[in-house]
């Protein structure tokens, strides 16, 4: 099997699910004839028709709301946010309408809201966001944020089949930089399960999305230069979080660094730290520490963006701190 890119994996997932299930359809801005700002839906309209790959007006709240309505009546809509930054315009619809639908009114609401997220691309404050933390305290939603092309495909397929609404973040830095070989057949990766991206014994890095790759680079460097054995956990799903995987790695290495691209304050690392405290505090040989973005809107100029976002060298330094503690 040939390698395909992350964004091709997304496209394959969409195509396979649309093929398999006529209730799956896509809607979003410029996703039809144009194939989407990042070409994630390229060719799908030609293949599945205009009514299954719908170009919408610039109306994120309507896109998500309409998806919810369709889902109540048996459809499985997949919404694209042209950039995930614009999901903020559907924040009310997602947190109030969609997330509560089943609980408050027994309304089935199996929708997926997906879109390109994340920085390291000189996109500036409105084309680089990582809004996942804003949705973390909304029961009723699931949140997926894959780091590999294999997971991108398998988790998107699982998300489309999931009976609950799923926010699906696709890191645009990975779209064309990361490739993978898709397992044959109906490749599904369950939501809610983390992945050990690298085994290690001395310390654990818990992370997700683009920083998984930076953590792996850092682990490589630490092994080579410091002889440190670093375990890297790729969370993959942020809601629900895989507590078992978190606890397992803490009990194994006793030292934890949580790394993410979102700002340090209010990012998901806080939740992870709290869970570690609750579930396996006694196994900690050092404080849980965070490597994340500085608490500023993400600036555009390369030196600024590089300064604000966590870099491999930051993970290396923080790991050394933990190891030396």
């Amino acid at each position, binding site marked *: 099997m040939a390698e395909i890119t992350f964004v091709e994996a997304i496209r394959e997932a969409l195509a396979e699910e649309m093929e398999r299930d006529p209730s799956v359809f896509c809607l979003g801005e410029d996703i039809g004839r144009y194939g989407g700002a990042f070409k994630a839906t390229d060719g799908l309209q030609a293949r599945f028709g205009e009514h299954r790959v719908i170009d919408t007006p610039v109306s994120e709240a309507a896109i998500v709301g309409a998806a919810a309505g369709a889902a109540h*009546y048996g459809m499985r809509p997949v919404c694209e946010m042209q950039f995930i930054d614009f999901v903020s315009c559907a924040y009310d619809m997602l947190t109030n309408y969609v997330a509560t639908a089943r609980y408050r009114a027994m309304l089935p609401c199996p929708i997926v809201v997906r879109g390109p997220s994340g920085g390291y691309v000189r996109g500036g404050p409105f084309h680089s966001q990582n809004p996942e933390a804003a949705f973390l305290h909304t029961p009723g939603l699931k949140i997926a944020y894959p780091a590999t092309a294999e997971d991108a495909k398998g988790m998107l397929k699982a998300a489309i089949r999931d009976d*609950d609404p799923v926010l699906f973040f696709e890191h645009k830095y990975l779209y064309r930089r990361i490739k993978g070989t898709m397992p044959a057949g109906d490749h599904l990766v369950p939501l809610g399960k983390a992945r050990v991206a690298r085994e290690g014994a001395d310390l654990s890095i818990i992370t997700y999305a683009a920083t998984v790759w930076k953590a792996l680079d850092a682990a490589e460097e630490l092994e080579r230069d410091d002889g440190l054995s670093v375990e890297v956990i790729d969370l993959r799903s942020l809601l629900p979080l895989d507590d078992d995987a978190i606890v397992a790695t803490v009990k194994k290495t006793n030292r934890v660094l949580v790394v993410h691209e979102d700002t340090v304050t209010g990012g998901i690392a806080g939740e992870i730290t709290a869970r570690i405290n609750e579930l396996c505090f006694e196994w900690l040989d050092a404080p849980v520490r965070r490597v994340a973005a500085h608490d500023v809107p993400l600036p555009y100029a390369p030196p600024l963006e590089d300064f604000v976002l966590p870099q491999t060298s930051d993970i290396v330094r923080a790991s050394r701190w933990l190891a030396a503690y």
Partner: protein
Amino acid sequence: MAVPTTSSLPAPPAGLSRAQLLELYRWMRLTRTLEERLVALYRQTKVIGGLFRSLGQEACSVGSAYALERRDVLSPLIRNLGSMLVKGAEPIEILRQYMAKGDSPTRGRELNIHFGDVVDRNFVGQISHLGDMVPVMAGVTLTFRMRGEDRVGLVYVGDGATSTGAFHEGINFAAVQRCPMVVVVENNGYAYSTPTNRQTAAARLVDKAAGYGVPGVRADGNDVLEVYAVTRAAVDHARAGGGVSLLELMTYRRKGHAEHDSQSYVPPGEIETWAATNDPIDRYTARLTGEFAFDPSELTAIDAEVRATVDAATDVAEASPPCDGPDALRGVYVDPASMPTLWYRGDATAAVVAHERPAGWGTHDG
């Protein structure tokens, strides 16, 4: 606010049978009687939370919902109790819901008439956030168009809700997609305390229709037959593939926003005038007994039957069980079907003993 102008004379009973004319009367009467019962229960503090009345607006709800088939979908708001009844909601459901009973349609999760049934009777449980139901109904009706189903959707908004971004995005989306959807603006003169002329500078809310490229009709919302006729025409238009319509029904909110509201902001006499001269049930009664030559006793018989129905439902509702706390954890997701109870609900000392620690971790003494 002036008495609304009627865009045309009331149509003759638009294909309705005499039995249907009485049915319309019964739905309006049931709406009013049930709301009056809720007021009584509210005063007895048996209704938990706010109580929202549609007094004087019953014709809007009933006449419009009556234009739908059972397979069609309705999206009601807090003042559309009448629509929900027409669409098959039972008084007992309403009562249990308002009283937060364990066997209420939402098992105590939501309040007042915030509930739905998309499986059988086809009305959608609303949320409080105004305007949000418009995109949702755009999606419901988009589905019908995509699947080639002969079904229509109707969504209500108040004059206030027309100011929301969600209303705008939803109707525009549906119009472009030619969704079989009817948007009914129930212009009752106020959004909470805000009169319609502080809500919009538009002369008429129906003037928004052209901006979405859809037909717009303004009608007398207190004439149940006119409401039925204009809605029916819009529903037929949608069913025939014509897409979205916007209807503005002119009515008046005679009670406060909710029961607690003193209506201090209403100009003196305004409510009284509407009550005296433009009550939808009074007007319809006069027509039924006049123009349509029903015997008044036929109507009083309906009134009595309705009262008996509401009495009986009240008794059952009052005897309904309360909600059970731990049930709160069920049904957020299909998977997992239930959320765990938090760790501190139980015996603290036992929990400390049970708390897992690594082998060799001694009892800590601070």
